[in-house]
């Protein structure tokens, strides 16, 4: 099994190496990409809808000012260049020349100002929260946009990705009711592909934008996004060649190695660096065993993460070593306690605290077979070191409620980190984010004024070296406290037929569009 996985990983490396410039073969023009989209998106207006399938399809129609590579470095998209002032408060973007909307109207700086200052402030809560740091957004001329911040906000440069800030056409939306605009059904963007047809329950068709401003792109003529509701049927569609691309999460994890071994199948775990989903075990800090740091450490040592990664996640992703996922900015491995699998240490800690076999309630996240098997493995790991675990199973609604009501001792979960600790990490640790009713805030109830202050300072510190100092300190504190048992920095592998080239070229993966993709 291990050998085969190495094989598939080698293939994925090969696939990843076919980046522009490095690719040996010349891109072939034309052809059609058949992709699975799961579930069917509720709509394609990316400025209004944020669902994962919407982001996946609409990333071809709309564009952001920037893209981000695997290291999350900004790359040009609608903006060709950008500067950040020395005080960290003024961001100036120079825009692409000669860009046209899909309806032929010219794209200008006024569209960007409208999008950020008017449209997204109204429609996108996540973007709105970050735009609170922005004082003014202006367009000194048609090709320049200036964001003036009230105070430095380090994560700001990571906000211009297409899912977070898709640029929408001012001439269509200005002065209308955004949610009810009929144009939402026929989305108009600047992207490499245009919306053509949507047969509900069957497929969404996009066609090449012949006037795309990057010469020679895109290479494909059309993209069909197929709606196939059953996981087994999606796997069969890939095997029979009806679809060429299975984005992450569209088939059961256990089916991935089998499909990866089929003829002409390539697999890659790239393209999740920006979202950086990290899984961990919540501890309820409000009382009981899990309020005792020795118990939390014992649990952290007792879990065999490498086994779960091999057996349940097909050897993909990375074992988490701390609260910042592997690809999240400002991660600092040096300050972290090494909680790798060590049952003897776990037993010693339990003995030290005088643990006498009191049961803990484990309410695992019921997100399908992989997560349930994982919960069983964790329970067994804990029982192997002598911890008595009462597993409480429920459906998704029941799990949301139990976690939202803080009625648990242990629970599995995963959250996106969005590249920056201020955007995706702090929310699970700061005391201001403790509130009943949601399973995705600081559910564990960890409350530490020192950590609160560090996270607050980190968000607005400038420059990055100052942020690094603060975030290193916070990681050390969280790791020393074993706040949660961090499990795996997840990757959801993308399966393709090997003749699909250059599909994943950024840290956002398939969501960043098929601009560079081609089919041999």
């Amino acid at each position, binding site marked *: 099994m291990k050998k085969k996985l190495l094989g598939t990983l080698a293939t994925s490396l090969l696939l990843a190496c076919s980046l522009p410039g490095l690719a040996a073969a010349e891109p072939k023009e034309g052809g059609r990409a058949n992709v699975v989209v799961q579930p069917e998106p509720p709509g394609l207006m990316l400025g209004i809808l944020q669902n994962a399938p919407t982001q996946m399809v609409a990333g071809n129609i709309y564009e952001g000012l920037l893209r981000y590579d695997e290291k999350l470095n900004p790359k040009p998209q609608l903006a060709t260049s950008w500067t950040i002032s020395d005080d960290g408060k003024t961001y100036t973007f120079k825009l692409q020349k000669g860009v046209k909307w899909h309806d032929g109207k010219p794209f200008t700086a006024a569209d960007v100002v409208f999008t950020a200052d008017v449209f997204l402030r109204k429609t996108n809560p996540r973007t709105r929260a970050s735009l609170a740091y922005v004082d003014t957004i202006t367009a000194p001329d048609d090709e320049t946009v200036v964001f003036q911040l009230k105070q430095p906000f380090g994560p700001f440069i990571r906000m211009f990705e297409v899912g977070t800030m898709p640029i929408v056409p001012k001439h269509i939306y200005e002065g209308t009711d955004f949610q009810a605009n009929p144009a939402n059904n026929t989305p108009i963007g600047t992207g490499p592909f245009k919306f053509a047809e949507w047969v509900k329950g069957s497929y969404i068709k996009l066609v090449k934008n012949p006037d795309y401003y990057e010469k020679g792109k895109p290479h494909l003529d059309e993209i069909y996004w197929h709606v196939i509701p059953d996981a087994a049927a999606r796997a069969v569609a890939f095997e029979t060649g009806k679809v060429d691309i299975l984005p992450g999460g569209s088939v059961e994890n256990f*089916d991935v*190695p089998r499909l990866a071994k089929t003829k002409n199948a390539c697999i890659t775990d790239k393209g999740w660096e920006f979202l950086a989903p990290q899984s961990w075990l919540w501890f309820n800090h409000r009382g009981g065993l899990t309020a005792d740091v020795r118990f939390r450490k014992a649990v952290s040592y007792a879990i065999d993460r490498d*086994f779960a990664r091999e057996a349940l996640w097909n050897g993909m992703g990375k074992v988490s070593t701390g609260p910042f996922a592997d690809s999240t900015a400002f991660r600092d491995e040096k300050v972290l306690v090494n909680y790798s699998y060590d049952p003897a240490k776990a037993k010693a800690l339990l003995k030290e605290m005088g643990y006498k076999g009191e049961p803990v309630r484990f309410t695992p996240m019921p997100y399908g077979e992989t997560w349930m098997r994982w919960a069983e493995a964790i329970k*067994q790991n804990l029982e192997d070191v002598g911890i008595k*675990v009462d597993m409480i*199973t429920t*459906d998704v609604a029941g799990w949301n409620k139990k976690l939202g009501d803080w009625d648990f001792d242990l629970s599995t979960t995963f959250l996106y980190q969005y590249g920056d600790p201020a955007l995706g990490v702090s929310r699970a640790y700061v005391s201001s984010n403790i509130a009943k009713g949601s399973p995705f805030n600081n559910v564990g109830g960890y409350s530490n004024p020192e950590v609160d202050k560090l996270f607050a300072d980190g968000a607005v510190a400038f420059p990055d070296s100052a942020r690094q100092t603060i975030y290193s300190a916070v990681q050390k504190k969280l790791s020393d406290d074993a706040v949660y048992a961090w499990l795996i920095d997840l990757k959801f592998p993308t399966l393709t037929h090997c003749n699909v080239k250059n599909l994943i070229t950024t840290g956002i993966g398939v969501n960043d569009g098929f601009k560079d993709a081609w089919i041999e």
Partner: protein
Amino acid sequence: MKAFWSRFRRHKAAVAGLVVVLLVVAIAIAAPYFYPVSPWKMVQRPFLPPFANPAVPLGTDTLGRNVASGLAYGARVSLLIGTVSTLVALAVGVPIGALAGYFGGVVDDVLMRFTEFFQTVPSFALAIVLVAIFQPSLFSIIIAIAIVGWPPVARLVRGEVMAQRQREYVEAAILAGQSHLTIITRQILPNVVSPIVVLASLMVASAILLESSLSFLGLGDPSIMSWGYMIGAARTVVRQAWWLSVFPGVAILISVLALNLVGEGLAEALDPRSSRDQA
């Protein structure tokens, strides 16, 4: 007793069924001796096919757990849930049926309307709802199966008691001044025990099936290894690892079939008419 056994023994299929049931009971009792470690323990690499390693003769599952050990411990769970839930259903159904059949009239009407209320709800749907409400656990599953299982018992007992109620020996007992309770428990129930025993053996079989179905849907007790859970967990990997669903499936099939055969054998052996025919 001897006569009963000789009648039962004539029924070859029933004897075979009994042998299988006793075998399952033996496996259930011996499980901890063969497999001292928990069936949840990850003992080998995942997806080891059967017959490849003598330590895990039936292979390993998605997490490297021993399938053979799971089957042995699953037998305990199936038998435990089957018998206990049947006993609970009998404890509820027999008194209600006996009272309704003995007293008749208003008592009968009230008790039977109450019974019908349970019978009109599809039993599997009711069991799912009950387990979901009370949190899946061994206790809630047994209770749920008993709740959907007792109405047929009550109806059967009512009919039998009603027939006995007209007999002379009951009239004689009443004239002798025996209390209603004594008449029901001492006089009538011993005479209707045969159909109850037959029904009970079939109920054990259906309880095993019901528990398997609940576990298959993920509504089993998360800390006990049962056959239904094993099949449910194997569903997504059925194309990679056939043995994960086939072995527990066969175990359920054989056990339920055996219990049904025993039930049929009992029905014939306990039926006074069949004994008269043979005499």
